[in-house]
């Protein structure tokens, strides 16, 4: 992972939008190397020895923050977590002020999650180090899309143009869906979304996807079924009438999954609502690669962090 003739020479990873397919493949290839490192008994490397990584999470997250933290530590970086609960943001400090303050501490990379679309890009304009978008509002979540692609590639090979990927659920509020639609289209996959219309964004038909409102029809010929989380406040009358109605029509159970290809992968970005968007036996079943996604998440984040810091030159 140390010396790579990089075909990814950006300072930040703010989204999938704008990435070339070669850049995506480059990151996936580096992530494969990281998978091997992570499976060794001694997982620690010194690639980023002496470097500082700050995880700045304006929005609560356990899984993603832990994944970035482990990724940074396995690369040998010093990792600091800063969550909104114990930051001065609550005292009225603006995003820009926070960025300037952290920048003055000379970090090498900032991992940022924020509840507002575009906030991470805004912050990246004010700092001298690399910035990774760990999710900004309903905009993008690029490392999630990369880890999903890595998981798919390990099972289905790199010929994405032969694959049909079905994304099911709350596309409207999902940054994961946007990043995945962009990435899968960039790699040539056929992408279909299945959701009630109240959970689809305006203009979805121009986003390079097929739209199906019937899940059985939508799962036909699917190689990959990606389920999206439906947040609780959206399931009781606001966007769909009830949990039970949603599960009836859009929850992934054995009967519906039978309409997909027999070897279709079942994926979920987590955390899951068992019995809402996915039945427990499917989540834990043989087609599920949900746990593997978590493992790939660490690998992809190692690859992204190492690549971005690699761009900014050697030790100072």
């Amino acid at each position, binding site marked *: 992972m140390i010396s790579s003739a990089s075909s990814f020479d950006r300072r930040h990873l703010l989204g999938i*939008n704008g990435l070339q397919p070669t850049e995506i493949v480059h990151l996936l290839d580096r992530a494969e190397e990281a998978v091997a490192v992570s499976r060794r008994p001694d997982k620690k490397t010194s690639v980023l020895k002496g470097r500082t990584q700050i995880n700045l999470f304006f929005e609560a997250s356990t899984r993603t923050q832990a994944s970035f933290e482990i990724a940074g530590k396995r690369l040998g970086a010093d990792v600091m977590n800063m969550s909104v609960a114990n930051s001065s943001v609550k005292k009225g400090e*603006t*995003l*820009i002020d926070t960025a300037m303050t952290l920048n003055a501490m000379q970090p090498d990379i900032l991992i940022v999650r*924020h509840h*507002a*679309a*575009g*906030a991470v*890009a*805004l912050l990246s304009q004010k700092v001298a180090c690399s910035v990774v978008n760990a999710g*900004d*509002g*309903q*905009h*993008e979540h690029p490392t999630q899309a990369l880890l999903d692609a890595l998981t798919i590639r390990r099972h289905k090979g790199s010929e994405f143009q032969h694959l049909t990927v079905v994304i099911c659920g709350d596309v409207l509020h999902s*940054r994961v869906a*946007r990043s995945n639609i962009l990435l899968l289209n960039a790699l040539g996959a056929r992408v279909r979304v299945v959701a009630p219309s109240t959970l689809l*964004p*305006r*203009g*979805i038909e*121009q*986003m390079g996807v097929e739209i199906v409102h019937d899940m059985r029809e939508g799962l036909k010929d699917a190689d990959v079924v990606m389920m999206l989380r439906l947040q609780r406040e959206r399931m009781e009358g606001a966007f769909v009438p009830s949990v039970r109605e949603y599960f009836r029509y859009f929850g992934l159970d054995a009967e519906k999954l039978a309409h997909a290809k027999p070897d279709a992968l079942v994926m979920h970005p987590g955390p899951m609502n068992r019995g809402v968007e996915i039945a427990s036996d499917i989540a834990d079943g043989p087609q599920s690669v949900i746990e593997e996604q978590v493992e790939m998440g660490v690998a992809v984040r190692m690859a992204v962090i190492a690549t971005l810091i690699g761009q900014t030159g050697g030790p100072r």
Partner: protein
Amino acid sequence: MIASANQNAPFESGRPLLIENVRVVDPARNLDTHGAVLVADGKIVAAGPEVLNQGAPDGAERIDGKGLTLIPGLVDARVFIGEPGGEHLETIRTASLAAAAGGVTSIVTMPDTHPVIDDVAIAEFVMRTARDTAVVNVFPAAAMTRGLEGKEMTEIGLLKDAGVVAFTDGRHTISDPALLRRIMTYARDHGALVMHSTQDLQLTGRGVMNEGLFASWLGLPGAPAEAEIIPLERDLRLAGLTACRYHAAEVSLAESADVVRAAKRRGVKASAGVSINHLSLNENDIGEYRTYFRLSPPLRHEDDRMAIVEALKDGTIDIVHSAHDPQDADRKRRPFAEAESGAIGLETLLAAALRLHFSNDVPLMRLIETMTSAPARLLGIDRGTLIAGRPADFTLVDLDEPFLFDETMIRSKSKNTVFENARFQGRVMQTFVAGRRVYDAAATTEAEA
């Protein structure tokens, strides 16, 4: 600047002012001619081709207008100011300096201040402050409902008698149709003009830009077109019912223009306005979350922009305004959905509008009309024309002069322009209010301070 040095001094009435050898454009008389303009006692004596038939009056100050075009001073019907309550954003004085630099000689101020202009005392405060500090004419609009809360009618009669030219809830839209109907009915008895913004709050929801593909990719909640069209249609129906003088303050969609067109055809006494921003820009200008382009109503699709330009040309839309809305950097340097909406525009109104003339979209006469005589007529003020006897409010423009609008030129206290580094053609060289020079491009900036 000359006026600011002695603005409380009585006008020097002894010496007439003659601008000669100039192109004179006066839409109220459909006049576009080579000629001269003679001013005395702060009023227009004559403007046109035959002014000098009797020769120049003795002792007149003479300005050679060679290469320049003289138009009536612009009347801007939608200007937000920070005074009272937000003087760090803009004062009446700084807004007036910005206006003068943009060739705007009359501004109608919105009631969205702290406290709200919903009471005679506050309206009088604005008029008094304007008299003492402003270099252009300031005509306050007052709130239609107390505190802009959309609940109780303001004292429309008393406010109108005090000098208020229009009634509006500014940025706000009254949601209760029964209340709006009563306000319109009452306003009709007083011959008062009701100017209403039409953005349905509930349908807009959390929407911060035009709903559509672009918003969806950005992950920003959108406001649907119907959030503007539905209240607009409602208002026009009520205007028909009440026979009130109604002005749709902010029309931004092709379909809104259609709705206004249909209402006018039915005989409704309605007019419509559009901001220069919506005539000049579209949603794509937001790019990567550029918060200066967050506006209300939001910037729309290019098809909408083209349709409202057409509606301006054919008279469906009556007036163009700046929607000048100063916001400081702190309120704009935020994630898009958390930033304030609004952009300043007094200084760029004319220059940006002239683009529509140079692109052959709207003829010069019509364009100037929509910013001078049309709003003046609507507001019932004796401005916006060069007819003899009227106050001598006019501006001298060099239509051939290109310029780059950069931040250092901004006279407004707030710098939130959507035209930073824009290339314009048509520069304001001098502006006069009641015969007094209030802006001179040749003068140094120190003189204005």
